[in-house]
């Protein structure tokens, strides 16, 4: 598309808008980028006053932890091929080995295997081989860039952060599954019913969306703590105490997420022509069969997008999980608050940084892979009305 002469931009305008964009990108990425760098340095370097020292890490290098020229070259090459294969080979393999109809599950499975393999090769095999080769190379093998993974080892192995990680995975998996099952049904019902009741239900959901979460948690907390006494008449002696239970938190988060989920899924369902399920109904399907056999197969993009946002809600939640889960069942985000109390030395502080980066890494990958879905999900409700 060629723009007419009147619509063309002057050089000054193009320059200033380019400069503004560059500045914004720097602003958006810098804090995250910087804590990622800090997490790989020894405490002295991580909190050094000179930015150059934070990047190169002389004290870290002095401790004997660092990357040589060879490490950097080989590491970048491995990274490059890993990313390339993720986009070229992996889709083919998933399609080849996945039983038909299970493509979503196949993708999750494939991505997890690929991720684990990458971590094993990059952080396990590579240092082992390069450690041997570096010794033989002389000047090329001496470290030039300070870098240490000791904080990550401390966080994940010594402080048992993997427990929090597993709890996070449990909670988010639960939130996504239940949200989508309940939400798709409701979204479909609301999209296909033109009744006033449907309209008022949507307005009610909007009001529920606005409620501060603390209001809801103030309601759950006493009930959850006393739940075994309240439920005793129904369940007898084995009545559970809901406080501290991950599945109780899942139910709460699903409820908090429902208003948003049904709004979003409804707008996706409205984009699917109603003729499609009418045709299925003429062919003898019931409403539910039409929903399951005809509509759901074309709804996958909408479901994946909504699932992403449910994932974000479950994964990012601090308030609900920190108040309703006890210390053993804590998820990652509230667990990081535990580092504040321990934060007496700079080593603790850098460990907290490493934990924060660990929490961020999956989100980073998520945006990278699903950017298109996230953007379409955000705009689905807004632009189409």
């Amino acid at each position, binding site marked *: 598309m060629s723009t007419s002469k*009147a619509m063309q931009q002057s050089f000054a*305008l193009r320059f200033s808008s380019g400069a503004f964009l560059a500045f914004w990108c720097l602003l958006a990425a810098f804090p995250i980028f910087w804590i990622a760098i800090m997490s790989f340095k020894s405490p002295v370097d991580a909190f050094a006053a000179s930015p150059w020292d934070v990047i190169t890490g002389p004290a870290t290098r002095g401790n004997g932890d660092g990357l040589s020229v060879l490490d950097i070259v080989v590491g970048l090459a491995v990274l490059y091929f890993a990313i390339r294969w993720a986009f070229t080979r992996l889709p083919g393999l998933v399609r080849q080995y996945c039983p038909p109809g299970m493509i979503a599950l196949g993708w999750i499975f494939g991505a997890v295997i690929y991720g684990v393999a990458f971590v094993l090769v990059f952080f396990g095999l590579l240092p082992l081989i390069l450690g041997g080769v570096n010794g033989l190379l002389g000047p090329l093998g001496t470290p030039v860039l300070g870098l240490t993974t000791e904080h990550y080892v401390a966080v994940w192995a010594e402080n048992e952060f993997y427990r929090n990680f597993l709890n996070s995975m449990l909670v988010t998996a639960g939130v996504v599954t239940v949200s989508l099952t309940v939400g798709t049904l409701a979204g479909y019902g609301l999209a296909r019913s033109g009744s006033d009741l449907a309209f008022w239900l949507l307005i009610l959901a909007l009001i529920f969306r606005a409620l501060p979460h603390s209001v809801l948690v103030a309601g759950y907390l006493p009930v959850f703590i006393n739940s075994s006494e309240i439920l005793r008449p129904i369940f007898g002696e084995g009545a559970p105490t809901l406080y501290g239970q991950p599945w109780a938190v899942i139910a709460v988060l699903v409820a908090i997420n429902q208003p948003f989920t049904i709004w979003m899924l409804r707008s996706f369902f409205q984009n699917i022509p109603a003729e499609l399920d009418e045709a299925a109904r003429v062919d003898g399907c019931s409403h539910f069969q039409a929903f399951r056999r005809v509509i759901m197969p074309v709804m996958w993009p909408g479901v994946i997008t909504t699932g992403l946002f449910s994932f974000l809600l479950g994964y990012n939640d601090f308030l609900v999980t920190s108040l309703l889960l006890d210390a053993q069942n804590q998820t990652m985000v509230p667990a990081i608050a535990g580092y504040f109390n321990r934060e007496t030395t700079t080593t603790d502080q850098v460990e907290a940084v490493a934990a924060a980066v660990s929490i961020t890494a999956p989100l980073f990958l998520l945006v990278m892979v699903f950017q298109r879905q996230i953007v379409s999900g955000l705009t689905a409700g807004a632009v189409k009305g």
Partner: protein
Amino acid sequence: MKFKTFAAFVGPSIFMMLLFIAAPLVSVFIQSFQETITIQEQVEVETCTPGFVTQTCTTEIKTVPVLDENGKTITETRWVGLQSYQNVLQMDKLWEAVGAGSWNDIMQIDFWRALRFTLTYTLLTLPLVLGVGLAIAITVNNATRSIRGPIIFVSLLPFIITPVIGALSIYWLFVGDGILTALLERWTGNNISMFAQGWTVELLMYLYKVWSSAPFAFVIFYAGLQTVNMDTLESAVIDGASRWERLRHVIIPHLMPLIVFIALIHLMDTYREFEAIVGFRSQAHVISLQWLTYDFMTPDDAGNRAISRASASAMLTMIGIVFLLIWPLRRTWRDHKGSAH
């Protein structure tokens, strides 16, 4: 669709929302008028310690909780009316402070301090988020097609990232001799500590909010810009409209429903700010309404949670959001009715 089928589809979702949103709401409302206290009694306790010749015994009167036959403390729930609200609002202290005309005294009361911060935080950041979001959307829309993907990727990061971590990542840049504090110190030649006084912490929190919310506004505006009618725009050019006039009279009116939509979401989400307080550890200087409720609900040193006060402050928080949302909701309603005619 028959009502029965509709109910079968929508039922589970409505059930969950009623059970986990509406029911807690009702229970919070009731709790805010009640107070649960442990029944205590005063007992005479004689404690003896071995002395040099004889035992030294002292008798004192102690207050201990009454236990039932299972060894659990007995609690009693009483109807206290507006007492919890009074405890949160502290109206007597407020009037005293207003009478004395002392702003500082008003800010000594947690609720009013939280309300002041929450409102300024919500309302001050709103125009900034809208403005920055629109600016990014317009410049990205003007940029070459090939670089739009990476820019959208980078822009989404602050929005997607866990809010506590986002706040922390900015906190670490400024804390102590953090890299940006060091830079500022070198630049101004003064010794700067960003977290020692209230206003710098607050400033950083505003920055954080704009940083983390502008991407949402950007994406929505960017999508809206794709639907701007090119013919209208070109006829505006032919009529001699400058860039600024085109923005003012063609683009912004076109985006108006989106501006209201973003304002609605921003008010909802910023009003319940909580993570920034945790991330910046700003409790000593500024607190938000949601943090106040959280604080009441966290067990204190004795392990007690101030549930009834938390309920009262939660109800007050909710009343606030209703007031804030009246304007955008009325506008949406008018647009809805207007489009129906």
